[in-house]
């Protein structure tokens, strides 16, 4: 392990530990009650006690997140292909994709929950709306950034539009798509949580977002923090997994996937 890699891991861990220590000390020294600000130890205890039930809720949220991400990748990718295929289609539809993206999901989630009766599907649609845009905009740019000389070469060798798409445009777009996917991973989780907040219990199952609301109402602040911790952890794991996927897929050729070691 090189010293730079060592510091990349050690430095943030040290900051985290220091932060938790100061937090713990401040709470104890000032006698702050746990319903205002629980000490890290109290949060850890709550995590231990409520862990199993929180994990169950996490699974509900995670299912919505992953389904929304998969839908964003599939439908987003398909929309990009349509956009790359037809400039008219892109020009006429892209503004609406932007509108969908900039409209706060909190504002339209109640409508979606009314329109879509099935609770899981309603939450899925909300999370999808938040998550699909980076994939569409990135992949569309990628599909249109094929090297001009290579495009000429494909023409010279009489390539069909399908061959150009398969052998040139899609590989060019792949790093863009994966970058979009990494952003969408985090957004899908945010979308799922926001939708759960708006929907409340909605159905029989309760996601992590609702547990946070509930804990807030009951002033069970340590549990609120514990749920929050699980949520952040999930977001980090999703990001790391997508980052790993991107590196695996692009490892042979793309600058973004090459570490200093293999140069």
């Amino acid at each position, binding site marked *: 392990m090189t010293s730079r890699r060592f510091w990349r891991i050690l430095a943030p861990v040290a900051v985290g530990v220091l932060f938790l220590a100061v937090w713990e000390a401040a709470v104890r020294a000032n006698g702050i009650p746990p319903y205002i600000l629980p000490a890290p130890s109290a949060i850890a205890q709550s995590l231990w006690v409520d862990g199993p039930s929180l994990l169950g809720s996490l699974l509900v949220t995670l299912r919505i997140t992953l389904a929304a991400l998969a839908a964003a990748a599939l439908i987003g990718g398909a929309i990009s292909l349509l956009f790359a295929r037809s400039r008219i289609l892109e020009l006429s539809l892209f503004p609406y994709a932007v509108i969908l993206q900039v409209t706060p999901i909190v504002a339209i989630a109640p409508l979606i929950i009314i329109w879509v009766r099935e609770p899981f599907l309603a939450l899925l649609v909300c999370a999808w709306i938040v998550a699909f845009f980076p994939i569409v905009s990135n992949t569309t740019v990628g599909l249109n950034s094929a090297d001009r*000389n290579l495009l*000429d070469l494909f023409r*010279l*060798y*009489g390539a069909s539009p399908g061959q150009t798409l398969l*052998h040139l445009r899609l*590989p060019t777009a792949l790093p863009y798509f994966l970058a979009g996917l990494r952003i969408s991973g985090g957004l899908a989780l945010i979308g799922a949580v926001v939708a759960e907040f708006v929907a409340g219990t909605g159905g029989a199952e309760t996601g992590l977002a609702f547990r946070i609301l509930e804990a807030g109402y009951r002033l069970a602040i340590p549990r609120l923090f514990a749920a929050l911790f699980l949520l952040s952890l999930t977001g980090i794991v999703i990001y790391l997994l997508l980052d790993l996927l991107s590196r695996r897929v692009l490892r*042979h*050729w793309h600058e973004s996937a*090459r570490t200093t070691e293999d140069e």
Partner: protein
Amino acid sequence: MEALGAIDLSVARGEFLSLLGPSGCGKSTLLRIVAGLSPPTSGRCELSLGGEPGRGHPAGHIGFVFQDPTLMPWSTVSRNVELPFRLAGRVRSIERDRVAAALRAVGLAGFAHAYPHQLSGGMRMRVSIARALVTDPDLLLLDEPFAALDEITRLALNDDLLRLWEASRPTILFVTHSVFESVYLSTRIAVMTARPGRIAVDLPVNLPQPREHAIRTSADYAQMCETVSAALAGAMAARDPR
């Protein structure tokens, strides 16, 4: 904007013709028209390739080398060279053998499974040349292929290109802005002027064949370089008051 003026140029089969001129004289545009990648605004460009006269030409009869290697970074060297066959929808063992032979010809036999980013600039250019040659084209178009390379690599690739040309004798149109390169490589040099580009002087190069490195220091070579330089200076002065 008009890049090219009236161009009247005929090239014989097996000739190595250099198009020499300042930047912006439309050399590249001319090459694109010949390749059929851009239509001429007026006039026509007739090619007689593979024994069939006429304008249409089947894919693979023309090879094109750009100033950049223009490789697909996601494909290995052999997959890059194989591209013309893959686009034609036939990659059998015959084609694979030809890919291997093309790589041997440019001295990259051991790099078939390397990725472009693992190669040096000169090696990438060799891959690009191998790809252009793999279909055994009748016409090879090169658009300042060595302009971005260092002097040593450039000289080495000059010799390689000559060797490859002598082996299969395709007709070559070679765009360059180097007097020395054009004299060393070609059998004929067309000096072009800028804005609009047209052919000012058409000079045969009567240096002995096959060319070898020793020619670069011969008096004949120096004499020819001087003639071509003067022609180029004259062509530029005639058009450009600077």
